[in-house]
Structure formats: structure tokens, C-alpha cells
């Protein structure tokens, strides 16, 4: 763990506005991106991102300075998204007109591919989706995801493997594969 993070946290605990601003700016893209993926709703993601940071600052004294800050914050984000989804399930479904994750027009089927992947992610159960997004989009290691979600590394691997297989099956069902190439990068 970098001592710089510990210093930043201590300054935040003292109530220094500049440190609070630094911490928010450092992690807001990650938190917002995760929330958008998990909630599939940009406006909700904005609200939950605010909640996540308020929760982070309120719980900052409980952060273990021996561990990196990012997985801890991402774990809070996943928990807040889970809570939000439970609450949202009790409310009427809202249409997200602001959803902007669809890519621009493309000559090939990449737009359709991205759209299918997003749809496939939306069908995953939350635990699988969280692990998938944290690993593939946020580049988190298994150990960090395990710390964030408070689960054993083995469980995280199992969830990620199952999530991939479900996404792959959907891509196959939706005809997103061709027989021309099976080389993986």
C-alpha cells in the first residue's frame, strides 16, 4: 500500500477539502463506470456514485491502511449498487433516456457486438456481473476483487468463469460468431 494513499486518507479525515477533492477525482471514473455497468442506468449510477463516496468518507476510519484503497472503494460501490437494485425492484421501471454507452455508427458489426455484450452483462446475476466488470473493464486482480467483495479467491474465479460462459453462450445464440477465425489475442 502506498504511503501516499494513507496520507491522503489522513488528510481527508482531518476534513481538508483539497484532499477530499483529490480522492473523489482519483476514483470517480472507476466508481461511476462500475455503477453504470451494474445498474445499466446512467442517472441512477450518478446518484449511487454520490452515495458511494459519502459512504466512503463516513467509513474512512475503518479502512485498513495495510490494504490498497481502490478495492475497498469498489467493494462499497458494489454493495451500494446491490442495495439500489433491491430498492429499484420495488419501484416502477424507469426508462433511461440518458443511457449513452451505445457506441457511434461503425462500418462493421462492432456496434452490434458491443450492444450484445452489454445486453449479456445485463442478464448476468449481480455477483457474476460485478466480477466480470471488475476484472475485464477495471483490470482488478482476483485477489483485489476477492477483497472488494469479501469472498474467497476461488469463489471469484468460479463466478468469473461462469459469467464468461454465459456471455459467450449469448453471443453464440445471437449469431455474433463466424467460423473464420478462432485465434485469441
Amino acid at each position, binding site marked *: 500500500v502506498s504511503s501516499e494513499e494513507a496520507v491522503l486518507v489522513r488528510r481527508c479525515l482531518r*476534513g481538508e*477539502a483539497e484532499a*477530499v*477533492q483529490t480522492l*473523489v*477525482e482519483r476514483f*470517480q*471514473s472507476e466508481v*461511476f*463506470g462500475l455503477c*453504470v*455497468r451494474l445498474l445499466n442506468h*446512467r442517472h441512477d*449510477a*450518478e446518484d449511487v*456514485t*454520490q452515495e458511494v*463516496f*459519502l459512504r466512503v*468518507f*463516513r467509513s474512512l476510519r475503518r479502512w485498513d491502511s495495510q490494504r490498497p484503497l481502490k478495492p475497498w472503494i469498489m467493494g462499497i460501490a458494489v454493495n451500494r449498487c446491490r442495495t439500489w437494485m433491491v430498492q429499484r425492484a420495488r419501484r416502477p421501471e424507469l426508462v433511461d433516456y440518458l443511457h*449513452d*454507452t451505445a*457506441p457511434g455508427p461503425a462500418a462493421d458489426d*462492432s456496434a452490434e*457486438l*458491443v450492444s*450484445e*455484450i*452489454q445486453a449479456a452483462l445485463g442478464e448476468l446475476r449481480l455477483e457474476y456481473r460485478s466480477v466480470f466488470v471488475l476484472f*475485464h*473493464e477495471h483490470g482488478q486482480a482476483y485477489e483485489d476483487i476477492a477483497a472488494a467483495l469479501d469472498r474467497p479467491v476461488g469463489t471469484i474465479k468460479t463466478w468469473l*468463469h461462469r459469467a*464468461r*460462459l454465459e*456471455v*459467450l*453462450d449469448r*453471443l*453464440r445464440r445471437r449469431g*455474433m*460468431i*463466424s*467460423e473464420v*477465425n*478462432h*485465434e*485469441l*489475442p
Partner: protein
Amino acid sequence: MNCPECQDLLQRRLDGDLPPARTALDGHLAECAECRARHIAAQRLADGLRLLPRPVPPAGLAQRIVSRALEQRRTDRAWRRRTWTAAAVAAGLLLLVLAGYQLNRSGVFDDPGGRGSASREGATPRAKKTARARHDHAPGGKGGPFLNETIQEAGTAALALTRRTAGETVAQARRLLPGSTLTLPPLKPETPLTPALDPSAESLRQAGQGMTAGLRPVAASARRAFGLFLREIAPMNPEPQSGS
């Protein structure tokens, strides 16, 4: 290579690990349509993940979060301060109530010398208390002896402390101003303190007795502490003025 091994390899590839045995994999994929389809899908998935646009936070989100976080901090601190104050007041009140209850049970309020009708054998504690209260309240009675004695005692102690402090101050002043003729007006050594409590109601007198009994040890401790404090203070030694 069989299908489970092929699946394991697929997961490792998506993990970013490079497969060691390329030939065996190619051989299996050439034979197994199911595994081949999955591997092709995995490649498409890897391509698609690179194309996924990263959601960009709206402008001003960070500032809104910072404002709310600082506001929340102020609110939390104010709330914590109020909570601690309320808890301290509640704890103090509870201690007073417990002390009063304990003293009442231990019979401190009862007449220790067996004055008046309270000393009669067979009288209940409540009757004793009432009788003694009547005795104290009656004209010619001692009139709230406990509290008055304590006040008298405290007054004497305060007088002694005042005299000592004033004497030291005058001594310091004489050292500072050698030419002056400061004198301390004589204090009446035995100025009697008039009884401060004229009990007008039995309940008030009883409450006063309870308070006295509770505060007597505190007052004694405070006197001792103040005495120690005065002893610990270094005497003020003014620098001698050169040229004077």
C-alpha cells in the same frame, strides 16, 4: 486434449495467460465444433470488450460529491457533539440520583446522635426522619445543622485561603515597589457567618441535607486540591530593576 482441458485453456486465455501448448489446442478445436464455437465467441468477446466505451462521469459530479461530503462531515460532527453533551448530562444526573439513593439507604439522612423524638426506640426510619425534621425546623431548634455546618466550614476555609493569598500578594507588591507602604487591612478573624439557610419547607431542607452529604467529600477533596495547587505555584520573584 479433451473438452474440459480446452475450456480451462479458454479461461486462461481470457485471464491474459498465454497457452503453452498451441498444437494440442489447435488439434482439439479442429475436431470439436462445440469448443471451436466457444473459442471463436471468446475472441469476439475480447474484441468487444476493447470496444466498450468507458462511461464518463458528468461534469460537476466531483464538485457535488465534495460539497455533500464536507456538509455531511459538518453535520456528523455537530450531531456527535450534541450526543456527547447529552450523554454527559444524563450520566451526571444518573450519578446524582444513584448517590442520593445510596446515601438514603445507608442512613446518612438519619440523625446519628439520636436527637429528640427520632431516637425513640421502635420508631421507623421514616418517622425518625420526620421527627428530626420537625425538631430542626422548630423555633429554637438547630435549623438545618448539616448544610449550615458545611457552609460555615467552607467559609472558614475560604477566609483562610483569601487571607493567605492576599498576604502573599501584598508581599509580592512590596518587593516590586520597595518604596510603597502597602498595608493589609486587618480582617476580623472570627467573623461569624450568618446561617445561610433558613429552612422554610421540609422538602427543601431534606434536599439540602442530601446535597450536603453528597458534596461534603467533594468539597473536602477540592480544598485539598486547591491547597496543593497553591503550594505548587512557584512564588513570583520579580527581576530586580537595574538602576533603581
